[in-house]
């Protein structure tokens, strides 16, 4: 069983909700990333989304844009992410890792090569922001045959018809984008989210996880009441941005931000 499915089935038995942190790999420099991943697991992460830095992150707000710029300045490439996951797996064989990013770096190294490498280092899922299911004909089977979950987004603007298609293609979990906007925008409305999740429940058994706009324990707990998982990105990446002159303190800070959310969600 894929680690993602395994993790969600454990959480379901325990009656808990998934906490899914996102960080951009290579930010502020590649040597920190694996340490951050372990720190996030220590603080209660159930799944880790590892961002693939891209020169043109069109769906991201300024916080993650700058993270991409820092990571790219340090020369972080997709092949380096593979090494990070490999290193992470030496001591953590159970926490699912999802690569999240844009299509072009994957196009460039080739779909099959990408899928081979990802599977061999212990990646569990792939979320390509600018690849809706309609454009996934080619890469989809390559991921599936290697037991890599293809994770798709659903947005507030997604029609029921489209949502049904996305549910049919999706694996691992469904990533519900809580608001119209880019990552790091401020105005998540939990009632609104609940309203949009309801019809999705009728279409799929996939866990429904919610991202965009979750910044602290309060918003995390609110969303955890209506969703199966909570995805948090910019709130963490912000901590990295604020501590560039003291990178050795970052892991501890990420831990405390995430632990606060964990506590609030489990209360």
């Amino acid at each position, binding site marked *: 069983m894929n680690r993602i499915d395994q993790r969600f089935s454990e959480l379901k038995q325990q009656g808990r909700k998934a906490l899914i942190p996102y960080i951009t790999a290579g930010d502020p420099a590649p040597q920190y990333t694996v340490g951050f991943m372990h720190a996030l697991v220590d603080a209660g992460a159930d799944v880790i989304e590892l961002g693939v830095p*891209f*020169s*043109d*992150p*069109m*769906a*991201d*707000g*300024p916080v993650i*844009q700058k993270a991409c*710029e820092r990571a*790219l300045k340090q020369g972080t*490439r*997709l*092949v380096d992410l593979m090494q990070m996951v490999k290193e992470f797996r030496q001591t953590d064989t159970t926490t699912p890792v999802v690569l999240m990013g*844009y*299509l*072009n*770096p*994957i*196009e*460039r*190294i080739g779909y099959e090569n990408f899928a081979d490498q990802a599977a061999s280092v212990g990646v569990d899922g792939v979320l390509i*922001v*600018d*690849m*809706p299911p*309609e*454009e996934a004909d080619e890469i989809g089977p390559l991921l599936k045959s290697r037991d890599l979950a293809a994770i*798709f*987004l*659903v*947005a*507030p*603007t*997604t*029609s029921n018809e*489209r949502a049904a298609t*996305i549910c049919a293609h999706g694996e691992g979990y469904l990533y519900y*984008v809580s608001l*119209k*906007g*880019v990552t790091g*925008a401020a105005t998540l409305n939990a009632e609104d989210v609940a309203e949009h999740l309801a019809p999705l429940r009728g279409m799929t058994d996939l866990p429904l996880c919610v991202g965009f706009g979750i910044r602290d324990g309060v918003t995390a707990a609110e969303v955890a009441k209506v969703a199966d998982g909570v995805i948090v990105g910019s709130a963490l990446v912000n901590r990295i941005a604020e501590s560039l002159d003291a990178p050795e303190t970052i892991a501890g800070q990420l831990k405390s931000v995430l632990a606060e959310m964990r506590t609030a969600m489990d209360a």
Partner: protein
Amino acid sequence: MTASETAPNTVLKTKFSDLTRMPDARGHFGPYGGRFVSETLSFALEELEKTYFSLRDDPDFQAEFDYDLAHYVGRPSPLYHAKRWSESLGGAQIWLKREDLNHTGAHKVNNTIGQALLAKKTGKPRIIAETGAGQHGVASATVAARLGLECDIYMGAEDVQRQKLNVYRMRLLGARVIPVESGTRTLKDAMNEALRDWVTNVDNTFYIIGTVAGPHPYPLLVRDFNAVVGREARRQSLEQIGRLPDALIACVGGGSNALGLFYPFVEDDDVAMYGVEAGGDGVETGRHAAPLASNAPHGVLHGNRTYLMSDEAGQVSDTHSISAGLDYPGVGPEHALWKDVGRVKYVVANDNEVLEAFRELTHMEGIMPALESAHALAHAKVLAPTMRPDQHIVVNLSGRGDKDIMTVAKIDGIEF
């Protein structure tokens, strides 16, 4: 040289006549194009596609479009025989398709008029646009002013510097110009930021993309709206030359003025076509903006798959061109297909050749071209002398050069 002779070892089985049936239902031009966007925008693009297809063959919509082109833009634009320049080059006769004479000074307005009509039909009160040279921004601000729509224009901070005149023109027209500081601070970054705005304000905002790139249906509708250029040029050639021209030349940034001119000739196998990309300091230096001519790898950016300048890790490359309007690492997906099937030959003109052509046309014909258009002229300078005086080349003079006076003055060491 006929077009079929220019076909390299053609990989695809696409016949030239098939090219008129592109894109397919999902917006693909062979392996290119498509709709690679984050989910939030899928709905808006489906809606736009529906709106456009419901109006595309609607005689009332077409009549409204034609009326605006005639009375607001000033079409048809002349096809001008540049006799003195042709003679001095000593070869083929050069004819200039005078898009520089359009209202706002470039071909860009053909598309913004069309998209503004779509915006009006969808009832959205706000438009946004990206711009490089500022021509598309000016054309968008112009139609916004005319329709009373709110208008925000995204422009790379570097382009804001080099196209100050157009920035002020947009502001006079009532638009807000938002300088984009991220990335390389040029056209591609302006497009990123416009997409971010659109994703946030998709309910009340219509995004007017300025070239034949972006997600489906933009490459299709921008091509359709600009095809008036080629339809006129075809008719005018028959009237003024007495037959079709032997060759067409247009500059290629995203590729809208080139497709506009080429598309109505695509099945005329004897009409050779040349798309001229920005050679910058020379393709061999890496400082250029010529994804097709340099055989860049395939990639995905701004919603479509195409030839895309990127490094080995898939990060989009910095580009360089003297002209802001061509300073873009990708190219419209239809051009990518036309390259593969050999219908168009894609070449480059370097910055120094472009300046020379700019000066030459200004001196010899009294027409000051946009630096973008001067790329097409630079290739005419190369091609014409290889042809006979009874042969004919139509060059798309896509825009006028007023906006570039500061750039040229700076090169001449003149400060105002």
